[in-house]
């Protein structure tokens, strides 16, 4: 480890970290917003469920580098535009979360849904006030997977020259110099842990009602 180099590069590393956070978190939020209605649709219709979940699974198998290269053709963006990364990772997030949202809504006890209807909740009221809140633990579990996956996928964008922590890897390879590579890996891991922790905290804050289980 060359700490002197790290000190000199500090501003640049912070700059790369900032981009990394943005490129990982923005798709997470966008993806969740898109997955909510799609997941609800899959939950509502037994015929749509296998179709949506199947397509989502297929999307996830498209290699990320291929998607980064293909998307400019579809979106009409420049190849170096960070929007491509946001779009690609949004697709992956949606692919992960459609099933998660559908399963979260499925996890709400039938008695609870029926009671909500019988109490006079209209369909959308029941969804917003009862079903989604009760599904939060399942959704957060899926969100944690998507967050960590996004943090690692963003670094692939280094091959296209879009600035983020992955740039430290390419830099290290070109200079045959280990320090930036180790720094990049460490920061990615720490970032993933922090995002994961934030989602856990958010979940805990939103679900004070879940049984406090003793760790087994």
């Amino acid at each position: 480890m060359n700490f002197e180099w790290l000190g000199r590069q500090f501003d640049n590393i912070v700059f790369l970290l900032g981009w990394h956070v943005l490129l990982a978190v923005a798709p997470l939020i966008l993806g969740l917003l898109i997955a909510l209605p799609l997941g609800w649709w899959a939950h509502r219709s037994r015929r749509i469920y296998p179709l949506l979940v199947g397509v989502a699974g297929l999307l996830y198998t498209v290699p990320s580098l291929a998607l980064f290269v293909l998307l400019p053709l579809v979106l009409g963006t420049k190849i170096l535009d960070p929007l491509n990364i946001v779009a690609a990772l949004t697709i992956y997030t949606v692919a992960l979360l459609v099933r998660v949202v559908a399963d979260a809504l499925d996890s709400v006890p039938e008695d609870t849904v029926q009671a909500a209807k019988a109490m006079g909740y209209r369909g959308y009221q029941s969804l917003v006030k009862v079903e989604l809140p009760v599904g939060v633990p399942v959704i957060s579990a899926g969100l944690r997977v998507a967050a960590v996956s996004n943090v690692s996928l963003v670094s692939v964008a280094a091959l296209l020259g879009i600035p983020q922590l992955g740039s430290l890897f390419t830099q290290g390879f070109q200079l045959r110099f280990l320090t930036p590579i180790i720094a990049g890996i460490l920061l990615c891991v720490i970032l993933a842990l922090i995002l994961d922790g934030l989602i856990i905290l958010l979940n805990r804050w939103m679900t004070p009602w879940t049984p406090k289980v003793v760790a087994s």
Partner: protein
Amino acid sequence: MIKFENVTKAYPDGTVAVDGLNLEAPTGKLTILVGPSGCGKTTSLRMINRLIEPTSGTIYLDDKPTSGMDAALLRLRIGYVIQHAGLFPHRTIVDNVATMPVLLGESRQGARKKALELMERVGLPASFAKRYPWQLSGGQQQRVGVARALASDPAFMLMDEPFSAVDPVVRAQLQDEFLRLQREIGKTIIMVTHDIDEALKLGDQVAVMRVGGKLAQMATPSELLTAPADEFVADFVGRDRGYRSLGFANAAGTVTLTEEACVTLGTSAVEAQSKATGAWVLVVDGNRKPLGWAQPDLINGELKREHLNLSGTSASSSGTMRQLLDAALSSPSRRGVVVDSNGELIGTVTASDVVKAIEAEPHLETAR
């Protein structure tokens, strides 16, 4: 009043769940739908608040057909209690109970105040208000379910097997409390159960349904026991219906009581022996409340609590023939203990006393 007029529910695959049902649940009364599984009782119940839409026929709520009403608004007028309570797991108990008032536009604060009153009414301590459903036992959750259904003070209540998911002891307790509550509030209630004993215990009137969704008989509990309409009803009501119908026969004034000498704890065996009729003597406490029976010739020295035989039940003088007969049959001395409304001893009866009274009055007056 809730009225079914020729209501049929048929599914596309040809199954008929409810077939031409005509039924009237009078205002302020508890009407019970009972029958074996597959008789369409739950389907019938759910058609009232339109969780299920009838294929044909009309259901009236106070003479207005429900089919023309907005389903959500209709449901806000009807309390609904289901088997496993179906509480909202993400809301505290007080907010669960406040659900319908909030939906009806009441302020959260006002709704919570009302909810706290209702919790007290169904026997839930105020300390439960801030708890979540998973922290309550099944019986407590069911009380919350009842409070939630009552919170908007609806004129109508629908109850789908409300007491069947709890153990027998809690069930009996919930049933008794619910009967007491219904006497105060007088809602128009339709309750579904598969348990004929529950139906006979709780119902003002009982509708027995048969598989295929047809009404077999609609009658008061004692009529069902004494005059079942056909073999199906007779069979469904059960084998020991002769004995159980005594549970609806008023005992007051029909049976002559025999005076019973009694002793208290601490009496010497010799004195107890002198008071005994046959081998047994009745032991009471200082307020003449019966404690149990003892056999003085088996005791040395003083009469103590451990000498008591506790198998006998005691009947209230204003109770039913069934209680009197049971008191006599369960007593080791074969003399059934009869007490007044304060629980104080007034005398005893034998089984033959009770049977004589039954034979003397072929048409026993019903207790309700």
